[in-house]
């Protein structure tokens, strides 16, 4: 029997449909330099890290079935929590005329806003990677997409919850005091085996793109509760509530102007609350008779829990500029400033990237915080300004 399964798998692997047995991915090295002394003497000013993310892809049955496998490895100089392994993707996909079925671990993105991803909820954030919350852990799921003339309905059953990763004691930037993931607690007695559910409708009408979704299950962002651990030290313990969240994301594409809106209503995590983020992105094509495009972004972020919100986006304006050089090296610079209207705190982000030759990519990133109030969640990282260089070899 095992022998037959092996023959079957082998037949799949050598079947001549393209693209068969494709390997790609990247190998990278990251260096971060922190410009200020750390808040905790256990933290460091410099950090070196290696990362490897290969990707295997195979399709068969005239491309209507496929298998993708993306393991992820990081080796970090100082932070034991940041040294980690994850399966970003291990998905079997079956495509039919009116539906698509995906089973396995994967990543799903919802939303249109640039400075935060408010309505994006399917995946857990791999926070040790980057505080921008754009790195995600692979989420186990069964996802059925029903494709109709009037739009796509995605149904998600998520049988296993992934805890958020948090930097360890030597990690930086990180919360103060440190988050101890060994002391995580759940509202549901099923803990991480609680079956989470989601449904999303998405479509476009002319130049309007819309998504409406509902999520029921374990909150991806935990409440962090100050707790004394066994050795008597003050730590933060994650607490995962069962929540209901209804959301909408909307974009109107009017010539060079993109209008964007995301809003959500969440209950089950403390008091019921609403949050909204809206804004625009306008692109000037070919500025100063060059090939360079300049995008100008403006956004407003609001959370009706106000200062008690566990987010830095409770009443904040954000503005940014995106330079796309449209050159052979695909050079890009993105600058963004988030300004807290209540505390006056500012958070400046600069990201730049440029290809070197055909296979190498150099990325630069800097995150600087100014005037952070001790009442703001960003205060914990207010001395963790850093400059990062990230060089990858892509294959």
């Amino acid at each position, binding site marked *: 029997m095992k022998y037959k399964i092996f023959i079957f798998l082998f037949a799949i692997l050598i079947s001549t449909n393209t*693209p068969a047995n*494709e390997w*790609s991915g*990247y190998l990278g090295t990251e260096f971060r330099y922190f410009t200020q002394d750390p808040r905790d003497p256990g933290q460091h000013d410099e950090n070196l890290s290696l990362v490897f993310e290969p990707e295997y*892809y195979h*399709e068969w049955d005239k*491309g209507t079935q*496929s298998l993708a496998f993306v393991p992820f490895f990081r080796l970090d100089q100082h932070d034991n929590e940041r040294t980690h392994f994850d399966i970003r993707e291990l998905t079997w*996909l079956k*495509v039919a*005329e009116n539906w*698509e079925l995906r089973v396995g671990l*994967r*990543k*799903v*993105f919802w*939303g*249109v806003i640039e400075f935060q991803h408010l309505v994006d909820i399917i995946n857990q954030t791999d926070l040790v990677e980057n505080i921008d919350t*754009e790195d995600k852990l692979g989420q186990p799921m069964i996802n059925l*997409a029903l*494709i109709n003339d009037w739009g*796509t309905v995605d149904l998600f059953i998520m049988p296993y919850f992934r805890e958020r990763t948090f930097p360890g004691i030597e990690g930086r930037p990180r919360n103060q005091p440190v988050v101890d993931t060994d002391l995580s607690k759940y509202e549901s007695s099923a803990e991480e085996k609680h079956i989470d559910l989601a449904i999303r409708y*998405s479509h*476009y009408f002319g*130049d309007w*793109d819309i998504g409406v979704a509902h999520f029921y299950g374990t909150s991806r962002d935990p409440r962090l509760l100050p707790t004394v651990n066994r050795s008597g030290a003050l730590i933060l313990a994650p607490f995962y509530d069962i929540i209901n969240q209804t959301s909408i994301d909307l*974009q109107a*594409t009017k*010539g*060079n*102007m*993109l209008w964007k809106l995301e809003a959500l209503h969440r209950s089950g995590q403390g008091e019921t609350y609403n949050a909204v983020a809206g804004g625009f992105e306008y*692109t000037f*094509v*070919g500025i100063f008779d060059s*090939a360079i*495009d300049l995008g100008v972004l403006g956004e407003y972020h609001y959370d009706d829990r106000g200062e008690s919100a566990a987010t830095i986006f409770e009443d904040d304006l954000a503005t940014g500029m995106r330079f796309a050089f*449209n*050159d*052979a*090296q*695909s050079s890009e610079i993105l600058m963004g400033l988030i300004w807290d209207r209540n505390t006056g705190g500012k958070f400046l982000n600069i990201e730049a990237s440029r*290809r070197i*030759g*055909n*296979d190498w*990519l150099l990325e630069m990133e800097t995150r600087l915080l100014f005037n952070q109030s001790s009442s703001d969640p960003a205060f914990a990282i207010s001395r963790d300004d850093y400059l990062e260089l990230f060089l*990858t070899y*892509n*294959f």
Partner: protein
Amino acid sequence: MRKNCFLPILLLILPLHNAFAETAEEKGLAIAVEADKRDTGWVDQTADLEMILTNKHGESSRRTMKLKSLEVDGDGDKSLTIFDKPRDIKGTAFLSHTHALKPDDQWLYLPALKRIKRISSANKSGPFVGSEFAYEDLSSQEVEKYTYKWLRDETIDGHDVFVIERFPQYKNSGYTRQISWMDKEMYQPRKVEFYDRKNTLLKTLVSSDYEQYLDQYWRPGKMEMVNHQTGKKTDLIWKDYQFKNGLGDRDFDRNTLKRAR
């Protein structure tokens, strides 16, 4: 005998007479309509494309991508471009539902974030992935997008051609006009000159290595675009053209972007 000869001569003169009555604009339009007619009915098309970007110092970089197109009756075509190289953008996919005069609907898929992003199609004149080809150069060529003027007939490299001037009628074009050397046999361009907004010669495109598919559709094997103002050039090498693959609207919708390879 004499009388018998007269009728064929008259028949020969009649169409010539019509041709003389036709204005240069009418003749230009008629050629564009004929070219469009001859390139109708291919239903769907896939091809592999290699793009070689060379700067004025002779340094080059390569991109490879797969292109899929679907013919749409009474509207612009749908197209899907899936990048394979450079590797850092592998899996990036660009979906375009083109329209003759109304703005195209365009989406970009960013595989690292798994994000589908609706993008502005107002950027017609900008470079496509850093190349010397603008978005508008690679977009579906609908008759209504231009007004036309026949200039003269010529012979280039032993091929008889119509020389036609065309003027973009859609918004945000980077060109005042283009001059196209249209092969009389294939009704496909052998050469195109692009004039910028100041009406200065900006680029020249030379298409070659044409082959005929399904006994009807001519496709170039090579396209070479030279930018006279920057000294940069981009070569497109087309491979493995395939037609009537059974593709449909579902292969060009937003869901497809997430799994395009």
